[in-house]
């Protein structure tokens, strides 16, 4: 009982995710694409980028860089699976306007530069640049809080996770 109470208040059960892309943070449910808007792959936020850079939102491991470089997934050191998807339908760009700075499997620290992309070029090519950042392993958390913010940066928390009680 005591240990259960302790775990309720211990820091280990909380995990914070910082903004990977500088920009304005909106609820992911505002995204028009159903894959993200209806939270089919995860819960979280979407960022309207001010700058075409993706920084690691947590310490952890880069689990997947999509072959077309438009999305990157990380597993945090505490086990959160985070998907960062730059723009909507941008798989069709086949990697154009994206530059990766890490490879799949790399261990990274919060704030490390992972990926760069050309915001204006992607917009001019006719794509919506709104970029979902979602936690995919939602079943492992009792609470997934997301924070809407103007002009967020890598120091700002966008998602707070609370683990299921064991």
């Amino acid at each position, binding site marked *: 009982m005591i240990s259960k109470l302790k775990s309720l208040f211990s820091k280990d059960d909380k995990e914070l995710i910082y903004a990977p892309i500088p920009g304005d943070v909106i609820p992911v449910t505002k995204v028009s694409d159903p894959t993200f808007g209806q939270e089919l792959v995860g819960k979280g936020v979407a960022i309207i980028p001010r700058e075409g850079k993706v920084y690691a939102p947590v310490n952890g491991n880069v689990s997947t860089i*999509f072959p077309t470089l438009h999305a990157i997934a990380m597993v945090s050191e505490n086990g959160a699976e985070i998907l960062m998807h730059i723009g909507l339908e941008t798989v069709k760009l086949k990697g154009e306007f994206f530059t990766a700075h890490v490879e799949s499997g790399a261990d990274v620290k919060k704030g490390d530069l992972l990926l760069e992309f050309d915001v204006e070029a992607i917009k001019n090519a006719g794509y919506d640049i709104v970029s979902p950042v979602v936690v995919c392993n939602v079943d*492992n958390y009792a609470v997934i809080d997301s924070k809407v913010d103007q002009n967020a940066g890598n120091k700002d928390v966008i998602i707070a996770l609370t683990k299921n009680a064991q």
Partner: protein
Amino acid sequence: MRVIKAINNNVVSAKDDTGREFVVMGRGIGFKVKENMEIDQDRIEKVFYMDNQNTIDHFKELLSNIPMQHFKVSNDIITYAKQILNKKLNQNIYITLTDHINFAVERYNQGMMFQNPLLWEVQSIYKNEFQIGEYAIRHISDQLGIFFPEDEAASIALHIVNAEYNTVMADAMNMTKMVPVIVDIVKEYYQTDIAEDSLHYERFVTHLKFLAQRIINRELLDSQEAELHNVVTNLYPKEYACAQEIAKYIENIYTYKITEEELVYLTVHIRRVITVD
């Protein structure tokens, strides 16, 4: 509501002002009534509307050829099932279950009892329905003094499944066989066990039951959601490969190709059941 014909003392067929025929049950409702007599409203316990005249005719024929007690027992079981499941059941259940119980009682009286080869599968996949089947055999023993084995509970459960999913018996049996095989493919693929009492297993099985229903009824989801497909196959390549194994099995046995959308949903569900803490 006017009488068309008394089926027995407690059941009549009747029609409303529009001429639509239905069956009415109530104690003494058919006693000494004649065609076109107004039905005594106070005696009505239950009204059975069926989809079409054929079904009504079938129902009337069944009711005039079986002991009323068998129908009452069947009716009680259906009422209980509706409470437990809290959803609409296909009205045909009044015919199929009544017929089944009547036939099972006849067989019992002749000393013939059949085993249900799907007893274990029904017990593990259709838990609520099996619970209804267990209630049914208790109720039958109370009311008719006949002691059916658990196999009979599974058979009754499958009738309930049909009424829920709008399938026929052969389909319900296929659905029941399909789900555990899919679970086994996943266990084998990951060389792991899945705790059957967990919420995630429950959710996974629920997804599989509806998938099985969509396969049987040839109604697979197919919306060509390209973004979802791209994200899921990149995020979960191993689970997607496992889903493709399942698709192969379904194609081999049921000669039906699983759509990409179903594959993607299956992938997400496999991921959940495999990775949860």
